[in-house]
């Protein structure tokens, strides 16, 4: 399909920046449509092959990425457009990746501090004891009695042994 677009190399990015409409042969659109349909069938077929949760996910995302690329490059004409527009398009994907990626640093690791605190409950009468026992600088032998002490708060203490997490 690229052979029929020699003129577009001149049409886009002219000195005055005017946009020249870009027309593709009808058969290219049909071929693209057929490709997308075929890849949809592949997606469904791949879901019946069990290669593990992560494996299936990667395959499905890979096929979806190819489909999205075909749409962007051909239907959206980015293949023949200014490089600058390609950069804009990729930047948008980058922002999406930042949004989802950093959000996952929350959703995938939420509550870990609570788990650690639950293992080392705080003695309100000596609130820093549990932290000291968790300090890797303290030799294990020295820390062991203190850890036992913090796990079993002093009898007769009215205060709860563990305080709820800050959140």
């Amino acid at each position, binding site marked *: 399909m690229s052979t029929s677009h020699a003129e577009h190399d001149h049409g886009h990015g002219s000195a005055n920046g005017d946009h020249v409409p870009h027309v593709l042969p009808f058969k290219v659109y049909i071929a693209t449509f057929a490709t997308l349909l075929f890849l949809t069938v592949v997606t469904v077929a791949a879901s019946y092959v069990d290669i593990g949760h992560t494996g299936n996910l990667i395959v499905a995302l890979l096929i979806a990425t190819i489909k999205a690329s075909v749409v962007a490059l051909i239907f959206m004409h980015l293949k023949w457009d200014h490089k600058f527009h390609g950069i804009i398009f990729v930047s948008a994907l980058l922002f999406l990746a*930042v*949004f989802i990626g*950093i959000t996952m*640093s*929350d959703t995938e*690791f*939420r509550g*870990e501090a609570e788990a650690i605190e639950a293992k080392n409950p705080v003695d309100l009468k000596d609130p820093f004891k549990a932290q000291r026992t968790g300090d890797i600088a303290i030799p294990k032998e020295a820390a062991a009695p203190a850890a036992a002490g913090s796990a079993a708060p002093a009898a007769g203490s009215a205060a709860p042994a563990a305080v709820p997490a*800050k*959140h």
Partner: protein
Amino acid sequence: MANTATVDELGHSPEVRGKNYLNQTAGVWSWLTTVDHKRIGIMYLVSVLVGFGLGGIFALLVRLELLTAKKTIMDATQYNQAFTLHGAAMVFLFIIPSIPASLGNFFLPLMIGAKDVAFPRLNLLSLYLFWIGAIFMLAAIVTGGVDTGWTFYVPYASGVSTTSVISATFGVFVMGFSSILTGLNFIVTLHKLRAPGMSWYRMPLFLWSLYATSIIQVLATPVLGITLLLLIFERAFHIGIFDPTLGGDPVLFQHFFWFYSHPAVYIMILPGMGVATEILTTHSKRRVFGYKAIAFSSVAIALVSFLVWGHHMFVSGQSELSSAIFSFLTFFVAIPSGVKMFNWLGTLWGGSIRFTVPMLYGIAFLFLFAIGGLTGLFLGTLSVDLHLHDTYFVVAHFHYVMMGSTAIAFFGGLHHWWPKMTGKMYDEKLARVGFALTFIGFNWTFFTQFILGTRGMPRRYYNYLDQFQPLHAFSTYGSWVLGTGFLITFICLARSLKSGAPAPANPWDSATLEWQTQSPPITENFEKAPIVTLDAYERPAEETA
């Protein structure tokens, strides 16, 4: 700039003198159907000032209620609605569109020597969308108010509140489109319609700040749109997305919301920084020190703004890993902000400083932004924020940034460009009184709240401990001084429309292009297309010197 070979001192021949964009055509219909960026800017200006007045009334009501530790003038439900509507009106009806949509619309084409923005009809559409969104918000106020806080946090907003949440959020959703269209229009205009010779590095820095703002508007606002739509769907159809009782994740809402709303903070402050730059350079008669540093720091702020949203969520239950990452990234915002601050001071150094009214606002901006920005570092520090979160310290901090910096810059810009927009000079003495009361009242009201916050006064509380009452009362008295200052400013500007002296083309002896046409400008902006031959802020005299 007088940096045009084809434009004379006033830029006009006798045929067009006396004609301007205000008197070219007459009647309400000519305004409602105009595609002139200047008229659209003026209509935006009036709209955002109405929004400011509305938000201001709610602010005064909130402060009045907090005069005493128990009930003063309203019950708890009304109080919740008052602070919500204060926040929502100020953020969505005033601050976000304030500088870009009013001053930006008016001056962006003038400053690059263009006749209009790239898509004039789209510009008018964005104004109509803004009005439609505002109507939905006003409808929410009339039909039961909103009591969720301007952040619409779930699950309260999606399932508990009985107020008009859908109407308010839909209004914000529609206004988001207005914001996107304006941003898109500005980006295309700056890329495509700069006058011959107006290279990127010859543009006034206000335009660089508008460019950075537009990038954020286009990239971030759609996320707010999606978030609010999901909220509406959950509230209306009980689709579980954010509400934990429906299987949703409420912290996810905060991620969605702040991914827009933190960059939106820079939508609010970046144009203010741009206005301050124009004021400081013009009224100190000195070229901007560190032009490229200021220009690129605007873009840097825009990019970093997308990486720090989680610092609003340190106590939300997000993972400790996330909090540490966001706290670390937040400090990067300080670098371009510091670059700007030192370059502004460098611009003033050795300048011929004139304490005109716009300059007073410009200098006030420097003071207030320094306080607002530095206290932001306190709150960005994870360990400190755990104590200060949801206290009046946060309230004071963001008022120093939003009100003390953006609103002060907006009013500075309004005084700076008022002669160009209206063709009238205002009463300098009265404007100084208005400024002085605003500046004193602002610090009186909000510095007090820093102290309240560090002493543990939580924000959004209707009743509070008696020990906080004296400081609350003190803050409320300050709000009355602040309100009086704004009232005098409005009276001053309104009076100038009727009885102000005619404004010359360039009353401040500015070097930028918008002053090289008559005041107010003709509909086409310039009689002949300007050709730019000098650098930004460069004067012809410097060239010959």
